[in-house]
């Protein structure tokens, strides 16, 4: 990877950190299109419990990873919601970049020129 590309990737990651770490706190808290459709037909009370009606979410089951320290886009143990959401977003960007770039690097095409430059 040449230096100019490195700068571009770095700048892109910085934008992603800002979006996931800061702007995410200003995102809408309303159910998204899918979730709203899944809730369509039921009446909910203030505590978000189903009072009456028939809808998809009645059949919803718990998530296997509900105990993950990053579950529901927060960091376990951090009380401040803004900090918790923001830091979980930054962690997610880092992890996704790590897995993505690492994985793609491993399966990339290695022609002769690339093979000479490869670190291993």
């Amino acid at each position, binding site marked *: *990877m040449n230096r100019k*590309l490195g700068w*571009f*990737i770095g700048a892109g*990651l910085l*934008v*992603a*950190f800002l*979006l*996931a770490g800061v*702007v*995410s706190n200003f*995102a*809408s*808290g*309303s*159910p*998204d*299109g*899918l*979730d*709203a*459709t*899944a809730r*369509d037909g039921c009446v909910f009370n203030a505590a978000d419990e189903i009072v009456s009606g*028939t*809808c*998809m*979410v*009645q*059949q*919803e*089951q718990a*998530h*296997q*990873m*509900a105990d*993950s320290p*990053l*579950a529901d*886009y927060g960091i376990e143990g951090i009380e401040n*919601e803004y900090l918790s*959401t923001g830091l*979980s977003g930054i962690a*997610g*960007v880092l*992890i*996704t*970049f790590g*897995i*993505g*770039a*690492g*994985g*793609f*690097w491993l*399966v*990339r*095409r290695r*022609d002769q020129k690339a093979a000479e430059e490869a670190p291993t």
Partner: protein
Amino acid sequence: MDVRAMHISNGIISGPVSVVFIVFAAAVLAVCVWKARADLDDRLAPMAGLVAAFIFAVQMLNFQVLPGVSGHLLGGTLAVILVGPWVGALCVSTVLIVQCLLFADGGLTAIGLNITNMAIIGTAAGYLLVVALVKILPKTPAALGATALIASIVSVTVASQGFVLEYALGGTTDLSLPAISGTMAGVHVLIGIGEGIIASTTVITVAKVRPDLVYALRRFRRPVTIEAEATA
């Protein structure tokens, strides 16, 4: 503020149908890895990592589309334009797997359903539109932005119907399918417009700064030659 869960949860679609889609998604992703190798060079690999990370970040940004209803980017069209269809589908899948395993968003049982809709159907629909539009429209950043907007709207709406298909096969509550289809399509056209604005802004920016990093500008603009076919 809490970011809500935003993908299909466990239990909405029956277990057997969920398993069928896990097998289907795994098979398609295996083909994507195989095809992606031809595209992935030393330059595209880190770029693809960035695209995945960027999609993760933007998926956290739910925007209001109706009173009480929000939407977020799915990312298929954006990924197709920047890194191509095969690598793009893998980028979106990476995001969905990270969200499922670490952020408890999108059920583990439902992972095949979510990958099928957003990474496979969404990316495939976006790809078909992008290929067609890039050939017709002028090769300018603005035209690429228009391509991203139109392809995003179609891609997101088509992806939403993937859920309707899955619900027809294994929905766990007896509900009217035409009603689900209409509700999903209607709200996802609006979400697609939001996604299109984000995708269009992003690709215009990259096309101005580093046009050489835009896959759609490098690969889709010329008619396919024998040589390109051989490496594709």
